[in-house]
């Protein structure tokens, strides 16, 4: 009898490398593990980069499909996360390049909390709207640097893998992004 609830060696979550190998061996369904593992972070990152959840969903969906089709080119599956952020980041940059600044609208921002929500939730939504407006004033490079460092919690090494930039460049960018964000927050307070 197999003891229920007892973890064996085979019960552990497969590593990214194992999942990639499984997909490349022909098990397309295994790509669902990749989606489950990274979708939330990628959607959060793209939403904050683009300022619009629909555009973010498009960027992430296109990025994940592209990642699946080019999975054999992922030379280091242990860095799958960085690779996926790189793909989605490039989709976001393409989207931002195509979109003129005149397209930016506060209508794109997620709605303020429903009046029936609690006071605390409403206040939080207002604070979020302020931060989003402030973030929108940053250049795409600074916005990306701040999001990867402080929202996605990446190290500078991981950020370098995602962006292809050198670490000193990224540190400078993060420093400038922090100062610019604080400045913009003052204006929106």
């Amino acid at each position, binding site marked *: 009898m197999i003891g229920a609830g007892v973890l064996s060696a085979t019960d552990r979550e497969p590593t990214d490398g194992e999942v990639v190998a499984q997909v*490349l061996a022909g098990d*397309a*369904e295994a*790509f*669902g593990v990749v*989606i*489950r593992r990274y*979708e*939330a972070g990628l*959607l*959060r990152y793209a*939403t*904050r980069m683009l300022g619009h*959840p629909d555009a*973010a*969903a498009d960027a*992430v*969906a296109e*990025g*994940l*499909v*592209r990642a*699946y*089709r*080019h999975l*054999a*080119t992922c*030379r280091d599956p242990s860095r799958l996360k960085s*690779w996926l952020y*790189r*793909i989605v980041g*490039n*989709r976001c940059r393409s989207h931002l390049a195509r979109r003129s600044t005149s397209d930016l609208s506060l209508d794109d921002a997620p709605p303020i909390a429903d009046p029936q929500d609690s006071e605390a939730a409403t206040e*939080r939504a207002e*604070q*979020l709207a302020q*931060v*989003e407006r*402030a*973030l929108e004033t940053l250049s795409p490079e600074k916005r990306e640097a*701040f*999001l990867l460092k*402080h*929202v996605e919690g990446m190290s*500078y090494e991981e950020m370098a893998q995602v*962006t*292809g930039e050198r670490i000193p460049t990224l*540190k400078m960018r*993060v*420093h400038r992004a*922090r*100062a*610019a*964000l*604080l*400045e913009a*927050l*003052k204006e929106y307070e």
Partner: protein
Amino acid sequence: MTHIDPQLHRVLDGELPSDDLTPSQREQFAALQRAARLLADAPAASVAARVMTEVRRPRQSLGQRFAQWLTERHTVTIAVRPVWSLALAAALGAIAVIPARGPGPVLGEQEGIAQFVGRFPGAKSVEVVGSFTDWRPGAVVLRDDDHDGIWRASVVLPVGEHEYMFVVDGERWITDPLAGRYVDDGFGRQNALIFVRPLAR
């Protein structure tokens, strides 16, 4: 522009504890942390179903295309890629003057022959991967029979534009420096482009 003390940057980078911050630095620290926390909360609709629909959609493999090519009637068309060097020109010239023996391969109207040539002295293996191989290695292997460092392969491809890269010794991915046309690969590098077209009959 708001000034941030280098010490605060080091705290924010996790290099120093926050204990020794001045009150004004502490205020800036809290404002940035609060902003990051708020931004981290971004509920969004899942795209899993959308992505898996695409993942499950069957794609015709190179082998399937080749099998289809073998079972269909074809007429001959030849497309020549921009010549890499005089050596290649000579090679192509030699190919052109060799009389046909028997019926030979017959290509469809929507197919052409792509020539891939690259100079990789000392390489042990060279292959081409691209949109036509689903970016998987192993389908198009180049040869350097005379060991002069120039590797070549010809392959039947559908008429149209294809992205590709060379893979040298199974690990070095190299953009063809002589392709002439390139496209961003979406990962921060560039793929070479080849346009295959049928020759006028």
